[in-house]
């Protein structure tokens, strides 16, 4: 199983949209895929029309009263499942504090899922806390959607530095441009220059597009209702571009498969 966290310190940068759309493409390509909506706001659960509630709440999971396996819900799409959000996730930091080895609880929790899924996408809450440390420890890839603005780049720089320690050496940080508005000079400049921490970022970027915003109304991945749109194509291209990196991780039996055209 490859664990991909869609993460950014900042909110509203397209984390959930990326997690939902890329996970959908992974499943379409033949991989069994799980999304864990870790954000108490429950946006990913909303997109999949699944109630943002898990039985027993967060404490039930941490106290091993309920296996993660039991709270998984099928989405409407083949091979794509979801662990819904729960409002109690907002207290996850506190609950983690009370655990032994609080920094790797999440990793331990998802371990039994390894043989069942090819991909686990973590849709992360925007913060840097014990929860995010758990996410870093549990993930193979940190996908960081980044809006091309000066402040965003600064935040990204901070994140890259934070992850550049012995503890997170296993973690592959992949920032990519999100919500790009080519009408804005600054966006254009930053995307075209691809300086510093974004030097090796994917060439594809996700545009600022109404099709993506429509997800809130349609409550479905972009590809299902706007397959031919620029945004849907951008996600497909992005997923394809990520394949060699994922393959190089060499996790289990999985090898990349092309998304359906």
């Amino acid at each position, binding site marked *: 199983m490859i664990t991909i966290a869609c993460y950014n310190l900042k909110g509203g940068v397209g984390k959930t949209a990326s997690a939902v759309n890329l996970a959908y493409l992974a499943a379409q*390509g*033949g991989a069994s895929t799980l999304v864990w909506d870790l954000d108490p706001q429950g946006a990913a659960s909303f997109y999949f029309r699944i109630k943002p509630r898990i039985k027993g709440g967060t404490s039930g999971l941490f106290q091993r009263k309920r296996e993660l396996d039991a709270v998984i*819900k*099928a989405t409407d799409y083949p091979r794509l499942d979801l662990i819904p959000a729960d409002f109690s996730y907002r207290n996850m930091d506190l609950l983690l504090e009370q655990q032994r080895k609080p920094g790797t609880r999440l990793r331990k929790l998802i371990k039994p899922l390894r043989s069942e899924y090819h991909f686990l996408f973590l849709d992360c809450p925007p913060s840097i806390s014990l929860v995010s440390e758990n996410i870093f420890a549990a993930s193979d890839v940190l996908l960081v959607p980044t809006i091309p603005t000066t402040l965003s780049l600064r935040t990204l720089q901070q994140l890259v530095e934070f992850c550049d320690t012995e503890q997170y050496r296993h973690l592959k940080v992949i920032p990519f441009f999100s919500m790009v508005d080519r009408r804005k000079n600054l966006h254009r400049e930053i995307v075209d220059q691809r300086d510093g921490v974004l030097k090796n970022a994917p060439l594809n970027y996700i545009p600022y597009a109404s099709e993506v915003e429509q997800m809130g109304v349609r*409550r479905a991945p972009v590809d299902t209702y706007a397959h031919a749109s620029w945004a849907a194509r951008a996600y497909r291209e992005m997923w394809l571009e990520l394949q060699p990196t994922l393959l190089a991780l060499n996790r289990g*039996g999985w*090898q*990349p*498969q*092309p998304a359906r055209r």
Partner: protein
Amino acid sequence: MQKSLIYTLFRNDNLTRWRDRLRAEAGLVANPVEHLQIVYYDSFDWRLYAAGKTLTEVRSADGVELRLLRLVDQGIEAVVPVDMTAQRFFPSGLPVGELRQQLESLLEMRALLPLATLRVRRYTLHEEDREGKTRARVHLEAVSLVDASGKRRLLQKRLCLQPLRGYTRIAQGIGKKLEQDYRLQKVEDELYRQALAAAGKQPGDYSDKLDIQLQGDMRADAAVRQVLLTLFAVMQANEAGTIADLDSEFLHDFRVAVRRTRSALGELKHVFPPSTRQRFKREFAWLGALTGNVRDLDVYLLKFDAYRAAIPARLRNDLEPLRTFLQYKQRQEQSQQLAVQLRGRRYRKLKQQWQRYLESPLAKRPTARDAARPVDKVAHERTWRMYKRALKEGMAITADSPPTELHELRKSCKKLRYLMEFFQSLYPPGKIRASIKELKQLQDNLGDFQDLDVQISSLRHFAMEMRRRGEYSVATGKAMDALLTALDTHLHQARDEFESRFARFAGDSNQAHFKSLFHPAEDGGAA
């Protein structure tokens, strides 16, 4: 995905009426009708079936998908979307991924061939909550078999209830309604079996292993005919695939059947009338020679990846012109020689006459010495004789012996192996299998040695031919020299290993074992 529950419907049930009924009475939401095409695939020798699997190609409005299924519960092991429609294909042509990996390890060099084609008319209904989230699905399906001429025949109508993870209670509720209100019967998913039966396919009906059941007191000529008829059936089963070159193993199995036939004609000679034997020996020798070239080329191509691996990485790509050359030669030999001859008069006549002979009534007073004797006596004698010959030949081999002597021993071992396999059913199963295994150890070594010896001289020959055709660059020359050096090293390793392998084969305990099987008379005093 959760396992679907299958309910049978009557053949004359109207699916749209069912759809309307479930919509009205069970509160399900109906979706537009879909048309699917499902093709089952396996290799000619049923390798997927033997592993408890099958491959399906599912074509719908969304595209084409290959699914590897477990036969026991129709669960999906791996899926890959594809865009091809080939009638025959190899896993190596599929997109890199889990499905391909699994298929490659199960199938090796064998091609996937279509077994049965189904058309499915499908109405899907789903149960949804207030948010519009689907919590269970119901498929109403009319499944038809499409025969070779494109005609459809209705196989079954069925209802599939698909529970969704995390919402299984909803499906349970629907299932209860189906069983109680509509009196529907839950059944096992028999589609694979049904589809294949309707298409006239019997899973596992071909294997390259010989399984001939004989009785010891049968007349030798009758028993040997039974052996030969089995081999003839193998030849014929592989004929079309050999001519069409579907994959390399059709020819391989065809050739093995021919070689076994020749071996029977040669080693059981006193069972046949001499003139008949001479005639068929000559004709089968022709067939053996005819198929030899293409098989050799097939072997080089099958080994090509190993060839690449045997030389330094930087030279590997320079070896590719050799592959192209081998492929070209293989195609040429296959299509211009082998396929032409197998469609020709001489082969057709051989088949007719062979069949007529094998099915002719047995002579009341046969002239051939062994014909009317009990087969077990003949089997003991001939096998024992061949075993002694192999021992003698092997004992005479020293470190300085020329390769031809090992080659002779290899041929004797092969003949011995064939005799043991023909008459396997006359011996205690465990014992005969153990001795075949011992023999195989030696054969593998002799086979390696011989193959390498032949390959080295063939490759030298190919190098000259490639040079003549202008396909031999300096770089390719270097790569081929490296390959020849590597093969030569393997050759010496095989030669060095011979002594210990043979010592084991000729060891006292093994000799006693062979003697107890094939020459028990001396100790027992009977017969």
